[in-house]
């Protein structure tokens, strides 16, 4: 079965190519069928591969499929080859399955759109790239997928291209992630220069052998890769693009900007965990970035009024958790959270898509309200997804994954109480903004009657994801619940287990605090946004409240800062120098030459006596030369 691995990215890619070439003339039904089918097949193949992986794990925990030589120059050799281990398998499975459901969902959601086949083409291309990203056996192939998903994200954010605002959002996303990619590319050069290869497995081995613990190279490489990860995963300070990315169609937001692509940074760091393990500095940086992001995004989410933006900030915040997990060496916890997050965040987005379609593309939650009765499926999806997101104890997937991360933050040798504390604050915030969203949208008075009902094509994926959001957490039960770390064990061949240090609190005790935080948040949300809504409004109206509101609303003003620092200077320079100042050198030369002409021209007076005079002057000069020499 392993040898079918190459089909997993190829089929979506072929689907994308066919859709691009023949799409414009295709019936929407055919296009949808083709799009869903190609992903479906590839999901099935992944499943088969996973089946075999579980039963007959490949020797050494990884299987490499070499397709062809990509480039080979001097001592630089790279292949187009795929590498499958537990880590990539998890990602592959999640990507193919979630995207399959989202494809199915989209076939109804996008119905009637002009660019229907184009949408599926892009989505397929995205899936193909994402799979290449997770399967690439070397960093460059990973980079190919990495950039590929970036491009697809750009294409999909700007999918409704007629509105320039969407285009701007798309450009912002692409450019911001590419800022990170620049760092990552430099990291690649560094790794190759130091270790002589870009093959991930050899690289990891070489790093372990050649670099001592705390090596400066490991730190540099780790930080550069972290830069890339920050860009793609929308972490501080490059997080600003993600909320704007919500300009794309909602399924896109669900798939790319929530479930899969944005977690590529997590995958990258997990993939190259050896480097981070070698460098405490780099690892700490990851953790700090994660912690800072989760708090910052939490505050930003709290004051948004656009339903998708709230979810976007929550995504940023949740990826912050994953980074925190990675940063404290809780590798498997981070991956675990990735998986559950993929489920519940996709669910939330799909549900919000249902709301938005019903509300005639109205996204402002304050113009909604009381939708509980009108849209029960969406409501329950939100409730389940929201609880999972916020970590309702015991019954939701999010609770287990987030708990694992937080326990890692507290207990691992590189972790600390401070990091843990930030995590807990994050839980409070999450619960606060999640339930704020739910209460405002679905409870309270009803402002607008929703119109159309959604069909089963949208309903089924939601239901499936609802299920997964609940049961997805049971693959890893913490010690206080019987200690069944199936997930961690499964990943053992690819990622080391979280090292246990001594913690100030017992796992159960710590978990208790987290649960407390959750309920605190829930309660506060209930109080401020359902029970005494006017209180929250008056708080927002006060001077300080308004300032804070504005500050958070604009994501801590970072867009403004970047605009002043980078965008405007570059734009100004380009515009000011549109005519190319360097050209002045040459036009200047031309002007000098021309003036030479016009002045010399005066010597041609047409008068014969003047000509004779010149003759004589010439003679005088030359005789003078003779006389002087």
């Amino acid at each position, binding site marked *: 079965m392993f040898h079918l691995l190459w089909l997993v990215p190829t089929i979506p890619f072929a689907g994308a190519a066919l859709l691009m070439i023949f799409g414009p003339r295709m019936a929407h039904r055919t296009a949808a069928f083709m799009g869903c089918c190609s992903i479906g097949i590839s999901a099935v193949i992944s499943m088969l591969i996973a089946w075999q992986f579980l039963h007959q794990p490949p020797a050494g925990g990884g299987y490499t499929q070499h397709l062809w030589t990509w480039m080979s120059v001097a001592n630089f050799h790279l292949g187009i080859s795929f590498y499958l281990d537990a880590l990539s398998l998890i990602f592959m499975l999640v990507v193919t399955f979630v995207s399959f459901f989202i494809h199915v969902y989209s076939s109804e959601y996008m119905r009637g759109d002009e660019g229907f086949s184009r949408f599926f083409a892009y989505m397929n291309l995205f899936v193909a790239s994402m799979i290449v990203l997770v399967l690439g056996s070397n960093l460059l192939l990973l980079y190919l997928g990495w950039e590929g998903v970036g491009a697809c994200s750009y294409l999909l954010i700007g999918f409704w291209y007629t509105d320039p605002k969407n285009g701007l959002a798309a450009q912002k996303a692409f450019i911001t992630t590419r800022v990170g990619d620049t760092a990552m590319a430099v990291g690649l050069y560094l790794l190759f220069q130091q270790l002589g290869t870009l093959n991930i497995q050899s690289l990891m081995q070489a790093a372990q052998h050649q670099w001592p613990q705390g090596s400066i190279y490991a730190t540099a490489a780790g930080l550069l890769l972290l830069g890339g990860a920050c860009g793609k995963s929308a972490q501080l300070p490059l997080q600003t693009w993600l909320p704007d990315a919500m300009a794309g169609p909602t399924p896109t937001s669900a798939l790319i900007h929530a479930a899969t692509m944005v977690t590529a940074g997590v995958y990258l760091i997990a993939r190259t965990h050896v480097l981070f393990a070698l460098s405490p500095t780099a690892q700490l940086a990851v953790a700090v970035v994660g912690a800072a992001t989760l708090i910052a995004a939490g505050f930003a989410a709290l004051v948004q009024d656009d339903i998708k933006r709230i979810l976007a900030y929550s995504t940023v915040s949740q990826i912050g958790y994953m980074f925190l997990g990675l940063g404290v060496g809780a590798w498997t916890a981070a991956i675990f959270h990735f998986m559950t997050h993929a489920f519940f965040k996709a669910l939330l987005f799909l549900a919000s898509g249902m709301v938005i379609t019903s509300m005639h593309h109205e996204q402002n939650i304050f113009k909604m309200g009381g939708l509980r009765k009108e849209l029960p499926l969406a409501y329950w999806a939100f409730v389940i997804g929201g609880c999972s997101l916020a970590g309702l104890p015991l019954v939701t997937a999010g609770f287990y994954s987030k708990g694992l991360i937080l326990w890692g933050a507290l207990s691992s040798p590189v972790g600390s109480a401070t990091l843990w504390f930030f995590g807990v604050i994050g839980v409070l915030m999450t619960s606060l903004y999640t339930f704020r969203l739910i209460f405002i949208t679905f409870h309270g008075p009803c402002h607008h009657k929703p119109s159309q009902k959604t069909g089963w094509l949208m309903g089924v994926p939601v239901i499936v994801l609802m299920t997964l959001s609940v049961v997805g957490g049971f693959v890893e039960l913490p010690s206080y619940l019987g200690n069944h770390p199936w997930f961690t064990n499964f990943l053992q061949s690819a990622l080391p287990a979280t090292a246990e240090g001594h913690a100030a609190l017992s796992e159960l005790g710590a978990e208790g605090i987290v649960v407390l935080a959750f309920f605190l948040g829930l309660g506060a949300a209930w109080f401020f946004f359902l029970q005494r809504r006017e209180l929250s409004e008056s708080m927002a109206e006060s001077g300080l409240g308004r300032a804070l509101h504005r500050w958070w609303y604009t994501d801590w003003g970072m867009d403004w800062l970047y605009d002043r620092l980078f965008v405007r200077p570059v734009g100004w320079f380009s515009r000011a120098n549109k005519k190319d100042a360097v050209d002045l050198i040459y036009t200047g030369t031309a002007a000098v030459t021309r003036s030479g002409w016009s002045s010399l021209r005066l010597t*041609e*007076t*047409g*008068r*014969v*006596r003047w000509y*004779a005079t010149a003759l*004589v002057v010439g003679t005088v000069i030359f005789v003078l030369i003779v006389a002087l020499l």
Partner: protein
Amino acid sequence: MFALGLIGLLVRRNLLFILMAIEVMLNAAGLAFVSAGARWGQADGQVMFLFILTVAAAEVAVGLALLLRLYHRFHSLDVDAASEMRG
């Protein structure tokens, strides 16, 4: 004398005078040859003078013919009258 011819050439606007000035210059050059020949006691200088004489005659012939044409054309002997071309 050569220099004087030169001055004449540069100063006069009347083509006739210019031709005369040229004659003076040629004559001066001829004088130089004759004296140089005399210095070396050779006939060559004088032979050269003879040819200069011939040339002077030829130049004057063509020059005066041209002068007549110009005069018919421009009704003037002013050389600057004939300076249509410039620049």
